[in-house]
């Protein structure tokens, strides 16, 4: 090969390669622009929402009651657990008049459950981590009744439902849960934190503790529980967060 041929070959290959790279970069940029301009679904571009749903399917396939949040020791408990979020915790709430409204079978089965009835369920204590979606963590000693026990006692028809929805009494805060996560053995209807009754700021008289979910799903001051086959709305999922939010 003569030197001219070689240089020609090098120049041609260089040109071709840079054109290919330019085209690939343009395609990548095009894909990005497409993604950024998609209509929003629940606060986030629909392709992202769609992948969050697929991630949920993957997570559900791996989910197991045997996968548990590690049981921690009393020495690890945070004496002043940080709290976030007061949506649904308005001042006009009267704890004395509180009852829990429970619905299943598409509203055909309705009943009210009192605090005394919940306290009659087997009491479970656990020291587990609460992982905030922001990235911080607190270790708390919780006490309450297993949500699975509650379901068997007060809403056995609810066992077959695909989802569970919960709301504060003023309906300002609400969470949606997949049934397997709600019925996980570490999911508690909690009435005590760190050996004392729940404070109002932590969700008295009854809050959810669900270590298989981010903190946002650990709804405080539960007023209503619905067993349903329709995916319940979720306060933070409407703001662009993952509906599943599973850990």
């Amino acid at each position, binding site marked *: 090969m003569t030197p001219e041929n070689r240089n020609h070959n*090098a120049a041609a290959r260089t040109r071709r390669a840079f054109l290919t790279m330019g085209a690939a970069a343009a395609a990548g940029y095009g894909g990005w622009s497409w993604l950024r301009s998609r209509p929003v679904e629940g606060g986030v571009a629909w*392709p992202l929402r769609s992948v969050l749903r697929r991630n949920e399917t993957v*997570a559900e396939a791996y989910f197991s009651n045997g*996968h548990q949040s590690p049981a921690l020791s009393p020495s690890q408990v945070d004496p002043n657990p940080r709290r976030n979020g007061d949506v649904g915790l308005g001042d006009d709430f009267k704890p004395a008049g509180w009852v829990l409204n429970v619905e299943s079978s598409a509203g055909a089965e309705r009943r009210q459950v009192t605090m005394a009835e919940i306290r009659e369920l087997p009491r479970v204590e656990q020291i587990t981590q609460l*992982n905030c979606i922001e990235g911080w*963590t607190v270790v708390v000693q919780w006490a309450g009744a297993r949500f699975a026990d509650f379901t068997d006692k007060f809403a056995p028809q609810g066992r077959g439902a695909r989802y569970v929805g919960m709301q504060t009494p003023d309906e300002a805060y609400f969470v949606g849960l997949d049934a397997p996560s709600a019925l996980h053995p570490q999911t508690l209807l909690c009435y005590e934190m760190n050996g004392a009754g729940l404070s109002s700021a932590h969700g008295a008289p009854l809050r959810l503790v669900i270590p*298989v979910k981010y903190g946002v799903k650990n709804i405080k001051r539960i007023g209503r529980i619905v067993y349903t086959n329709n995916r319940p709305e979720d306060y933070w999922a409407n703001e662009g967060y993952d509906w599943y939010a*599973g850990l």
Partner: protein
Amino acid sequence: MKHLEEKHPLAIRWFHWISFPLLFLMMWSGLLVYWANDIYRVGWGESTLFHFFPDGFYQRLNLQQRLAEGMALHFFFMWLFVANGIAYVLYLAFSGEWRKVLPDRDSLRDAVQVTLHDLRLRKDAPPQGLYNGAQRIAYTGVILMAFGSVATGLAIYKPVQLSWLAELLGGYPMARWFHFWLMIGFCSFFVIHIAQVIRAGWDNFRSMVAGFSLVDSAKEVEVVHDSGK
């Protein structure tokens, strides 16, 4: 006299250039997430030398109040990042290219000499094949860092389902800490990598795009000899 010599296979070049925007997107969306709990710093006790990150950093890069978006992006692009990484490692393994990338017994000594040379403390650069010892260590290190980012990422993504992994890494907060510092590691790698690419010049840069290098025919003997071909 110069002649054309093949340097980087097409697959390596694609993996390289695909990983670049993906790593960038993972780091950027990761910063959108990190902002919500930006607790890491360099310091001792009460005194902080540097806080990750100052408010001006978030403001300038518009990283504030975008946690939901950051998570959605992170958990979208993670699939592409992992897929590209797995494909790259499999390619290295099955093509035999790993021989050019993994450090060998001379790499550490070579790397020290290369570093001294780059810092102008040593006059002559040690003879080298496709990659010198410093490059082998750096490029293998980046693969291991990516692996570490995926492992720590999984631990903080599913700390209950994968509690064994989170425990192995010292718990959720520790895994998050590692995940963060790996990101800083990638930034450091990026800065040095770009500086070295600029220093190495056009022929080297072109070789990562077009695949070939133009080599002095006199030099070629040396290269062939040293790479043991």
